[in-house]
Structure formats: C-alpha cells, structure tokens
C-alpha cells in the first residue's frame, strides 16, 4: 500500500476572519501549503491550477453553498477522488450523516481551535486516506 502525504490544502470560506486564522492554523502551525478561496465559484477556478490533496469546504456560503460546490467539483475529472471535508457550525449527528451522503469524507466542527486544526485535518487524512 502506498501512502501519499497530505501537503496541499484548498480552503473555501467566505469569511475573511476565518480565512486569516485558517492560514495561521494550517500554514504556520500545520506546515501545509494552503490556498484559500472565498466562494465555490472561485474554488472551481482555482482547483485546476492548485491541484489540492484535500479540500476543506465551508457548508454555508452565499451563492454556491458547500454541497453544491462539492457536486460541481466532483464533475471535474481530476477531482473525482479528492477528499473533501465540510467545515460547519451545524454538527448534529443527522446533519453529519447527510453531509456524508452528499459525499463529504468527514466533517470538522466550527468554531475550531486554531492550535489543533492541523492535527484534526491530519487525523482525518490518516484515518481515511492513508
């Protein structure tokens, strides 16, 4: 079994505050290469050139929300298999199950702790991907 390491993360999030703290949490603390987009549409443009190992997707965004962004991403041949994780403040069991059905690999609860977010992301990667 070959194991790919997690290096490139695309984070789609409309809130500039959260984008900034995610940059700190994932780039500075976590050591990942991060690309942030503020909408589903921007993500669709960015994925081709950025080629992420994993995508973190905010669920509730104006315009294209998380689930519809996920569907649109899945239609791109290069992103059929890319792990996509939802970030959401709604973390009831029923909602998590629904997000999974929609194709999210896992769900990270918001608000997150900036000091441990990278560990959470790495755990998800190790659990599902490697």
């Amino acid at each position: 079994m070959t194991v790919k390491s997690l290096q490139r993360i695309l984070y789609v999030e409309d809130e500039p505050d959260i984008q900034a703290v995610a940059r700190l949490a994932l780039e500075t603390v976590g050591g990942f290469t991060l690309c942030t987009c503020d909408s589903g549409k921007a993500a669709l443009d960015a994925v081709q050139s950025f080629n992420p190992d994993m995508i973190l997707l905010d669920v509730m965004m104006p315009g294209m929300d998380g689930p519809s962004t996920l569907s649109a991403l899945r239609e791109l041949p290069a992103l059929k298999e890319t792990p996509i994780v939802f970030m959401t403040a709604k973390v009831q069991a029923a909602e998590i199950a629904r997000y999974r059905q929609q194709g999210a690999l896992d769900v990270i609860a918001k608000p997150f702790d900036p000091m441990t977010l990278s560990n959470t992301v790495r755990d998800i990667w190790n659990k599902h991907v490697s």
Partner: protein
Amino acid sequence: MTNPPNIAEQLCLLRENYAQQLPAKLAQLEGAFRRHDNVVELPQLRHLAHSLAGSGATFGYPALSIAARQLETIVDGALNDGRPLSLEESDSIARLIEALDRGARTPIAPSSVPALPPSTVPEAERKLIYLVEDDASLATDLMLQLGHFGYTVKIFETPKQLLETPVDPLLAVVLMDIVFPQGDLAGPEAIIQLSIAKQLRTPVIFFSFRNDLTARLAAARAGGAAYLVKPIDVGTLIGRLDDLISDLPPEPYRVLIVDDNGPLATHHAFTLQSAGISTDIVTDPMTILAHLDDFKPDLVLMDMYMPKCTGSELAAVIRQLDNYVLVPIVYLSTESDTDRRLIAMQLGADDFLTKPIMPEHLISAVSTRLRRYRVLRSHIEQDSLTGLLNHAATKDRLTTETARATRQQRVFCLAALDLDNFKNVNDTYGHLIGDSVLKNLAELLKRRLRRTDIVGRIGGEEFVVILPDTNAKQAFGLLNELREAFSLVHQRASRGLTFTTTFSCGIAQYQLGASANDVHLHADEALYRAKQAGRNQVTLADDDERQDSY
C-alpha cells in the same frame, strides 16, 4: 511546551482584529433583528448569527458562539416554515442578543499548547529501511519478508555504499551487519562515521552471527538500539522495528464532557484538547447514550446539577451499561458538602473536582485517571499472547459496530480467519513455534490494517477483523492481499529451519437489520466453505456474492 512566539503573536493579532470588529457585527445583527418584521431581513439575521457561531470560539469567545448558534437555530426554524418570528421567539432572541454582548466582553485565553510540530513526512510514511548486508541471498530474503509487513527495504552491500549515499528523509531504521570483508567490526565503525559526517540520528539495529561481548560492545558504542543474532527471526525483528518506529501512534485519550452550560463545556474541551485529549460535549443529558456508543470515552467529566436529570442519576444509568461499568466518572461541581459528595459517589462516580478549576489541575487530575483506565482496560480486553483484543472484547466491539452501522446506515465487513492445519504446526514444531506463528499473523494484521479496523483473537487459531465503512468487495481485496502476504512469510522453526503456513478467511458484509450474531454466523459459514474448498483462500458470504457486490 510553549508556542513559537510568531504563532502566538499572530494569533493575538488576529484575535485583536476580530475583537475590534465585534461591536460593529453585533450592531449589524441587532439592526437586522429590529427590522425582523420585514421578512427579507431574516436570512440576513441568520447569516450574521451563523457567522458569529462559526467564528467566536476560534477567536476566544466560546460563549458568543453558543449564543449565536442558539439564535441561528431559532431563525432557521422560522425560515424553514416560511413564517415571521413569533413573539416568544423574538423574546428569546432579545435575550440571546444580551448574551452575545456579554459573551463579546469575556474572551478566554488562547490554548497554550501548539499542535504537534509540523513534520515534513507523516510518521505513517516512515517505513523505509536501509539494510547493509554483504550476503546477497540473506539480504533479499529479509527484504521480501519485511515487505510482507509493509516495510520498504533498500539494500547496501557494503558500509561504504551507505556512506556515499544521501540519506532519504523517509528513512526509519538502519539494519547493519557487524562483520564485513572490510573488517570484523566494519558495521559499527561505519555507523559512527555516519553519525559524525551526516548527523545521522536514525535508530540502528545491528545483527551478526557473532554473539561475543566485543561485537555487542562495539554495537552499543555505535548507539545501536538493538542487537540480533543470526539467523534472524522475522517476528522478533518486526517487534524491535515496531518499538523503534512509532508509526502506530497511541490513540488519544477520549473525554466525554456532560454539562448543560455550553460555554463552560467548550472551555473545558479546549483545555483538555490543548493536552492532546480528544473531547465530545453533551449539553443535553438525555442524549448521552448515543454519545457513549459513538465516542467510546475513556472518562466522563460531568456537571453535578443539570436540568432534566442530575449527575448522580446519569452516573447510575451509565453504570447499568456493561461496557461502562469501569469507565471513570468525575464530577465537576461547586458542591462542597461532604455528605452530599459521598452520596453522589455511592451512585457510581469516582471523584469530585471543585469548580472553578485551573486548567492545569483539570488536565492533571483527568490524565492520571485516563492512564490508569487504559491500563486496566488493556488487561481486561487484550489477548496476552498477541496483544489483540480477546474474545469478549471483540464481541463487544462487534455489537457496538453493528449498532453504529444500523443507526448511521453505514456498512462494515466482518472477516473470520483461521490458520490452516495449525495442529500440524504445533505437533511438528512444538507449541513455542506455534505461538510465534500466531504472533506473526497478529503482527501482520496490526501493521497492514487501518487504525480504525478492529482485530481480535477469539480462539486458539481463530482471528476476527472488523472493517468499518468497507464493503464486501473492498474487504475481499484487502484480506486476499493479506492472505497472500502471510503465506509468503518464513516462519522460523528451531535449528534454522523455516516453513510457511496459510490461513483461510470468510467475509460477511453487514446487511441492514442484521444482528451482530447474524454477521458473525455468515462470516463463519463463508470461512467453512473456504476450508472445504481446499483452504488458503478468502470466501464471501452467500448474500454478498448474490448481491453481486463485486
């Protein structure tokens, strides 16, 4: 541990920035609320609340997050029904806005322990081994054998070759012979040179036909982490490698926090998370059963007085569940009356911590109990020969997994494994060798399966593997790979003789509505058919074949 200053500073700046924007955001939210008669404003109100809920605690305002979340839920309800807010809802929101204001004035300190330092290569990838050995056939044999356990081996014929090669960052361990044509202690000497020239800090395992003190001393002086005498038993070598490469990191401790006060629960959760403990929060005590099964806590930290039921009542309920008879229950309470404390303890709790509690005290009190519980649980649950789960623990896990699959409509597979003709191994080579075959299979299963997979030894030579979120087709591919790998492992008998042995396997996929026993029965039937069909093969249960699931 303290944060590198730049991270702490940057986080402070972000928090300050967020704090500066908070009053404007709250004013905006209040404005949207005041205009809520105009239905157009409701989505805006929900959006503002959602944004605060999802960000507050990240920037140090957990109470803000909680209140905003409640507010969002109320507006969500009205929007989903397509109606304006009721009077009652408006009252609640007005109170929640006050709570938001209070929450915005009471930030908590950021957690002070950073995430694990970034490592360029995850531990799980470090499975590369350098093998320095001039006997080509021994080297190739070891490479193949270690390969079955998931290691990649690169062979060097002489120490000189190793010295001339740049060290691969994926390198986990060096296996070094002692005697080479270049000298009777050429191995250890090369390692000393390497550690000086290239600052090599990788653990080294020496091996040799020599078993004298001079050779062992040279190995020790070169910093050898272990010394093995030829012929090398692969099982022993794998054991040493596992000790050295911690790529099976211990599972983090899990604490379930039961407290109706959301912000406080979040605060305790952050404190514990900062010490690497994973947490799950229950704010409605009536939902605790689902949390227990899903999260499988190592400790329950509970508020004493909650609406709907008290901590003592809840402790009594937890103690009625067979799986949680032992789990430590610790109260966090302002209760100082000794009599009341004693009564509460009689109902099943283990300890009292007095609120408010300093974060370091909470971590220390909880950690001690967590450690002890894990040791206790391992004595009860583990098979002493292989370190896998024993019969009872495996059955428990199967029951839990079945319940989880039913509840969450997920799929899992159960594989039943049985060594082929194991009695012959014991009769021919003796029970000690039989035991080492069992250990080798256990080791192979542990190494090659995911951490979320559950592996148990349920009888003499019978093993069980539970593969969550795996369908029959995937399970078949995986187990067949393992079957093949195991059939190629050289089992070592006495006097340097080796032999190989195999296992048969039956796999059943969980079908909605089935019980744990059904799944086990189906896997056993499939195993029986594998044995009948000539052993050394993997067979799927009837249902799974009929469904054409692969």
